[in-house]
């Protein structure tokens, strides 16, 4: 592979694909960003649900843990 071969591919690409260059952003994206932020803040990650379920199961199986858990809370 030589520089000449890279240049040949470059010429072909430049001929067939125009560069995007300085594409103008067609609209303000802030409203969409705000929507995503509000949705993201409302959602709880799946791992948190797993932890909650695991804690519930552990407390059901070992009720003696309840005082210890309350103490640490």
């Amino acid at each position, binding site marked *: 592979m030589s520089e000449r*071969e890279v240049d040949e591919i470059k010429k072909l690409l430049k*001929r067939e*694909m125009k560069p*995007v*260059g300085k594409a103008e*952003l067609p609209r303000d994206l802030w409203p969409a960003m705000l929507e995503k932020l509000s949705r993201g803040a409302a959602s709880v990650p799946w791992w948190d649900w797993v932890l909650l379920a695991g804690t519930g199961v552990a407390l059901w199986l070992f009720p003696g843990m309840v005082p210890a858990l309350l103490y640490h809370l």
Partner: protein
Amino acid sequence: MELLERFAAGDQEAFETLFRQYQGQAYQWIARIVRNRATAEDLTIETFWRVHRAHARFDASRGQFAGWLRRIATNTALDFLRRNRREVPLPEDLPELRRADTSAVQAELQRALQASLRRLSPKLRVVVLLGLVEEEPYDEIADALGISVNVVKVRMFRGVRVLRKELEKAGVRP
């Protein structure tokens, strides 16, 4: 407190100011990689979502928000290309990005070219598109990808080699 310090501390107004200031730059950079307007818009929002979540990791004392943003934008675009590698063709909806004279032969050549580009792994495709089509300097590509200029050169040669082979298979001689 400076804007970047306020952003790093989690100030929502500072984030909005930075968003409004840099959304165009992020969009442009992502559009150069994915070559599709709607996808670039979605990925710009995804980029700033990641920026928002990572605000505490931003080192305001070093400044350089634009470089940090560009790296996150590049990773977001790369993740998109990885997720969609098999499912969808390389998106190129922007009509102004195609040649105007689309004869049958020309259309066939463009299809072969798109298919060959799709065969490249996302990390090679990004380097080829940014380096050869957009003519971005190697040091800027390296910075955006978080790799050295030498690695960019290696990826460029590998990308061009794969592209040549795929084009030759499709009967196109560069």
